[in-house]
């Protein structure tokens, strides 16, 4: 066989473009997933529960937060804390909405389930010429899902065998840094990030990682103010 297998015609080209755009993120997501799998097992989840958590919850930071709190906090409070950490998904969901014209309800549920920081960031950074942004998003999301699930499964199975002094969990903020840098394209965005960082650090001791939400809200408000101010100056 000399020919490369071609995609069935039903899969739009944008799907493969989105999938390809996600490839550079694999080396960051894989260790992040492994860390989440390891953290869950070390917190007292069975490997099966850890894998199920990843499949059903599918939220890296929330999985890490839940593992941190597990055993010390009532279940309901842990769920609440993860929902607060995941509030940003509601913001992403609203921000992606304009792309989803004409997509069926069933597909919307499926595509919504796959929404992550990474698939969102890849989709927002797509080339302006992408003919089918939803397919592009679906491609990035599919590969993200596969990478994450295999990463957490490997982590859950490796479990406690990884030496505790390896700073693997630092891969998490590092991959967020790599996502943040390309988004800092304008002064309002830089200001929003700066204010958000300061507030999130200053209010670190709030319960349930509320500092995350407070930081983001203050950052967005500051960015909006400077945008309005620039608008009047122009």
């Amino acid at each position, binding site marked *: 066989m000399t020919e490369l297998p071609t995609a069935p015609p039903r899969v739009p080209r944008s799907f493969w473009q989105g999938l390809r755009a996600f490839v550079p993120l694999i080396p960051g997501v894989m260790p992040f997933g492994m860390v989440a799998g390891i953290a869950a097992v070390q917190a007292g989840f069975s490997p099966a529960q850890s894998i*199920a958590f990843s499949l059903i919850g599918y939220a890296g930071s929330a*999985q890490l937060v839940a593992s941190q709190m597990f055993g010390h906090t009532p279940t309901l409070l842990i769920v609440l804390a993860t*929902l607060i950490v995941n509030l940003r998904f509601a913001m992403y969901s*609203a921000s992606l909405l304009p792309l989803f014209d004409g997509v069926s309800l069933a597909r*919307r*549920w499926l595509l919504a389930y796959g929404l992550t920081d990474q698939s969102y960031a890849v989709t*927002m950074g797509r080339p302006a010429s992408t003919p089918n942004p939803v397919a592009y998003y679906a491609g990035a999301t599919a590969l993200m899902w596969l990478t994450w699930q295999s990463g957490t499964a490997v982590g859950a199975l490796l479990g406690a065998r990884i030496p505790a002094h390896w700073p693997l969990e630092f891969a998490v903020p590092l991959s967020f840094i790599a996502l943040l840098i390309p988004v800092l394209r304008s002064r309002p965005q830089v200001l929003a990030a700066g204010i958000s960082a300061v507030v999130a650090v200053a209010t670190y001791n709030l319960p349930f990682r509320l500092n995350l939400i407070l930081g*983001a809200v203050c950052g967005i408000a500051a*960015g*909006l103010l400077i945008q309005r101010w620039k608008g009047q100056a122009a």
Partner: protein
Amino acid sequence: MSTWLLILGVGAGSLLLRASSLVLLRGRKLPDSVTLSLGLVPASVLAALIAPELLYARGTGAFDPFSPRLAAGLVAAAVAWKTRNLLWTLIAGLGLLLLLG
């Protein structure tokens, strides 16, 4: 038992948050101010996720402005700026953290 409740609770809640606009708001147009704010969401949320991780010690949760994590994070940010490559960012950040202990 409570582990499974936790898993199902996180799963249901996360799905509803992700579906909030995509499924419930479909067909409706958002006001300009909301669209403007949404453009600022990624920068703000990512910064809020990162900064405390660099400035507070793991385990103890103590504020530490001279932490090796901050140095490693700043170097990683410089590498991310130059290369726009996640793998190099990870190698630089994790490598420096290992060196600094």
